[in-house]
Every structure is written in C-alpha cells, then in structure tokens.
C-alpha cells in the first residue's frame, strides 16, 4: 500500500507542473500590461523597459515560466501589490479561518446527513424517507450564497440572535495560538470567547455545508438501501438481532464506504464554495482574500492563492485515496 501511495504521490507532480503552466499562461493571456498598471499613466518607454528588466518581464516566456516555477516550488510567489508583503505570509495569516470554517461545515453536514440518510434508507417510502429525500433535494438545489443571505436576513436581521459577519466580536478573543479561534479559546479555557466564535461561525458553516449535507444524505440513503438487502443483513436479522442494532451496527458501518468517497469528492466543492460564502459573511479567510486580490488586480497574490487551493485539493484527493484502505479492509493496494 505504501508503494501504491508513493506512486500516486509521484504521479501528481506532472499534474501540478501542468497546472502551474495553465495558471502561468492564463496570467499572460490577461489583457493589459502589468508594468503600465504598476507604473501608472505618466511614464516613458525607458522607465517601462527598466522595470521590465527588473522584474524579468523582458525575457522569453519559457524562461519566465522556469523562474516562476523554481520560486513557486519553495512557496515564493513574490510580493503582493496590495499588501506589500510576501504573498506566502499574507496567505498564511488567512488560511486558518478558511480551514476552521471548512471543518465546522463538514461536521455539521455529516452529523445531520448520516443519521438522516440511514434513517431514510432503512425505511424506504415511509414519511421519514420522503422528508429526508426532500431535504436532500433542498440541500443540493440551494445556492450557498443565497442561503447565507437568507440566514442573515432571518437569524441576524429579524430574530437578532446571531452576528452578521466576521469571526469574533472585537476584544473578546484571546491571543492567537493556532489561528483557529474555537480551538484557541478552548485551549485558553475562555468560554466566553468560545461561545462568541461559535455564534460567528454557525451561519457561514451552515450555508457552506448545506450542499454537502444534501449530497451526503442522498448517498447515505442509497448506500443503506443497497446494503439492506445483503445476505449478512438477513443473517443478522435471522439470528434475532433487534432491527435497531441491524441498521446502526451492521448496515451503517458497511454503507459508510461510499459516503467517505463523497466527503472527499465534495471537499473540493467545499473549498471553492468557501470563496463565495466568505464573501457573503465577510469571513476573513483565504476565499475572501482571493476576491479582494482579484478586484485589486494583485496578480502575485491571485497566483499564489490559486496554486495554494489547487495543491490543497490535489493533496486532499491523495489522502482520501489512502483512507479507502483504512475504512475498507477489502481494498489492498
């Protein structure tokens, strides 16, 4: 299995190289000259040529790509135009917020979707099944940003029980340790800060997780439906186990394998979904940073973020591949 995973990991290298080439070419296909944009209107040809030589923009494209890729490997994407700081450190300060949001979304989605899916699947065509199926359809059809806006409208606007935006109330959070506010406040035993972080994260996490919830619920339901007719389930019933035990012990544990696949597949959707949900809730993560960078035409930062997201996505897929073998003992690489 280790050799299989090493092979898979090595196989991603050409893919990552090709991705970096695509990103590089996209930037160069962009209309407008970045030097003119940076130097402003009041400039002359000599200055432009000097600036181009300084940034290496006068070299042929293949050489520029080679320089881009050699520094990108070390995580160096240059300096952000907007923040005047290295791109990597700007991204580093924003990443924990996005990871925290993604994790809470996954927790909400799986905690609701799996029981609902198992329940619906074990009683096909009952009222609970109809309710679950409708809920699943509702989840996959709901655009996350609209759900976010509606949650703000109802929970923050009308009922006024949750804050509309941001990660915490000013002055409540303690000093940063990990950058994950929930974890930090628990480590510092600061219950007020933990509650504050929880109220801030709830709406964006729910909006972000709703789509995954719908898909997971549907997948769990169909996986349970399929497993319910396996012979070992009949055997478990025949030996007199209570239906509850049959469903939750024998069926669920076997039905979870496709569910894990889907969690992995949906992580990518979750990552890109975070871009839009973070914008709705002014969540200070890497997703809203990407939109800020795009609007400011901050190309080094955009490139750095796109590469970070993509590498993360590739790595996640690799981990999910490895997880199959852990979850399903029948799979041996």
């Amino acid at each position, binding site marked *: 299995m280790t050799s299989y995973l090493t092979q898979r990991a090595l196989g*991603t290298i050409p*893919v*990552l190289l*090709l*991705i970096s080439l*695509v*990103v590089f070419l*996209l*930037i160069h*296909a*962009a*209309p407008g000259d970045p030097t003119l944009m940076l130097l402003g209107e009041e400039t002359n040809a000599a200055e432009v040529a000097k600036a181009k030589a300084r940034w290496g923009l006068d070299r042929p494209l293949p050489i520029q790509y080679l320089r881009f890729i050699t520094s990108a490997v070390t995580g160096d994407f240059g300096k952000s135009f907007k923040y005047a700081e290295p791109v990597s450190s700007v991204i580093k300060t924003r990443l924990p917020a996005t990871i925290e949001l993604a994790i809470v979304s996954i927790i909400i989605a799986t905690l609701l979707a799996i029981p609902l899916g198992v329940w619906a699947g074990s009683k*096909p*065509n009952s009222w609970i099944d*109809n309710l679950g199926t409708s809920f699943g*359809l*509702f989840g*996959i*059809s*709901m*655009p996350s*940003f*609209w759900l976010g*806006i*509606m949650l*703000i*409208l109802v929970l923050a*606007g009308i009922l006024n029980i949750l804050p509309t935006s941001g990660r915490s109330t000013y002055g409540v959070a303690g000093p940063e340790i990990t950058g994950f506010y929930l974890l930090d406040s628990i480590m510092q035993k600061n219950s007020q800060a933990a509650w504050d972080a929880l109220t801030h994260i709830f709406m964006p996490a729910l909006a972000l997780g709703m789509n995954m919830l719908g*898909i997971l619920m*549907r*997948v769990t339901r*169909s996986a349970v*439906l*399929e497993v319910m*007719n396996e012979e070992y389930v009949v055997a478990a019933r025949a030996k007199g186990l209570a239906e509850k035990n049959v469903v939750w012990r024998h069926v669920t544990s076997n039905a979870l394998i*496709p569910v894990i696949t*889907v969690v992995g597949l949906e992580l*990518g*959707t979750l*990552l*890109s*979904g975070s*871009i*839009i949900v973070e*914008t*709705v809730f002014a969540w200070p993560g890497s997703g809203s940073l*990407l*939109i800020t960078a*795009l*609007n400011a035409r901050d190309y080094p930062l*955009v490139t750095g973020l*796109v590469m970070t*997201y*993509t590498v993360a*996505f*590739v790595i996640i*897929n690799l981990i999910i591949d490895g997880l199959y073998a852990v979850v399903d003992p029948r799979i041996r690489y």
Partner: protein
Amino acid sequence: MQSLTLESVTSQSPGLLTRLRPWLHVKACTGSLIVLSFIAVGILGPAAAPLDPNKQELTAMLKAPQGIGAAHVLGTDNLGRDILSRVIHGARVSLLVAFAVVFVSGLIGVSLGAVSGYFGGKVDFLIQKLVEVVWAFPPLLLGITIMAFLGQGLFNLILALVAQRWIPYCRVVRGQALSLREREFVVAAQCLGASKRRIILRHIIPNLVQTSLVIGTFAMASSIIAEASLSFLGVGVPPEIPTWGTMLADARIYISTAWWLPLFPGLCIFITVLGINLLGDALRDILDPRLTRAGPGR
C-alpha cells in the same frame, strides 16, 4: 455490479419499484413544469416583462412588493428598477448560459470520451491526462481564474463554465465506449468494413445518448448555480445585463432594510435548480438506473 444489486432489490422485494412509481411521476411532472416555465419565461423575456429592467425611477426607490395588478408587483430596487422585470430578464441569461454550457460541454465531452474509449492507447492516455489536469482544479476556482484574467463577458463566462463541465461526460462515456467496442454489433460493423469514424458516429455515440442526457440535466443545474455565483462575485456578465447573481450581489447591502431585494432573485435560482434536479432524478431513474451513485454533476 450495481445493476445486479438493483435486480436483486427488485426480486427480493416485489412491489418496491411499483410503490416508487407514483412518486417518480410527481417528481417528473413537477420538474418538467418548472423547467418548461423557466424556458418559456426565458424565451419570451422582454415580451413578458412589464417594464424596462434598466429603467431607473428615482422617485420609486426601494418600494416594497405591491402585489398583483400594481405598478411594481415585486417592488423596486435601490435605483427604482422594477424587480419583476429584472427577474424575468435574468431568466434569459441563465437559460442562455445553461443551454450553451450543457450543449458545448456535452459535445466536447462525448466526442473526447468516445474517441478515448474506442481508440485506447496513446490517444486515450493523452485525453485522460488532460482530464486529470483540468479536474485537479477545485470547481469554480478555475472559472473564477479564467474570468479574472480574460475579463467579463457572456462568451468568456460560457468558456469558463465549459472548462470543467465536459469532464463528467468524458469519463462516463469513455467507460461505456470501452465496453461497447467489444459488443457484437460493433465487431460486426468492423467486419463489414465500416470506417472508425462511421463506427463512432453511427454505432457508439447513439448508445451514449441516454446517459449523456442524464449528465446534461445535472450539468445544467450546476451551471445555473455557477453562473449566478460568478455574477455574484462580480466576475460574470457585465453589470448592465440583469442576472439573478448580480441582483443578489446588489442586494447584499440592503438585507436589513429591503428583504425583497435578495428574496426574489434567490428564489428564482433555487426553484429553477430544484426543478432541473427533480427532472434529472426522474430521468435517471427511468433511463439509467446504473447512474444512481453518480449524483449531481459539479
């Protein structure tokens, strides 16, 4: 293996499928009704809209919905533009983008998939590498990047959405083409001296239509959401064209004061996508039970 399981389900519990049928019927009817009205509104568009969607009426800013028969049935926005007219015009953009994306990506995906599966070897390797690279981008991110660097516009938007949507077709079609090329009727056509092009066009592709139709329905739902997302982020169509996404983006600052601004365009996206998903579910159950696990396309 999946179709085998399905047979065992039906053989062990007779009546399961019969009991499912009325529900299937409801799904198909509701879905088609929603999709047909979406198409009708999209095509009629300007004729159905009571007012010019871009006409600003500064004396009637942020008017709440006034109900049927009044001047502004669904109210007006911050510039006094009629919400109902804008929503109707928005349907047109969504419809155009969705159909164009599904058609173009279907064309690319099915042809590449059929070629990849039928020829195998080097061609297959190259196409599958391409699939791997494009699929390695998180969905939507590639679209955002393309739009950011190529600029706003309807054509670029369609291009950005097609960029990844041809892949589900390509993958499924490749798998089916792989098995189809071993089937008797294909071998027979080969023996009769049919050219490769003829075999692919006349014998392989017609057998892939049903599956592609199901994938296409889910691709349509996902491209409507993606179009709205890109427009919402400000990298979709130019701001002078009213779309559901841009309406939602404009509505963001008025959430607490004017609930009707975000409610109606969002509801339109939700109901349309729900309708397409209902139809897709029904189509899948009828046409291709093997696809149950595939779920909606991204």
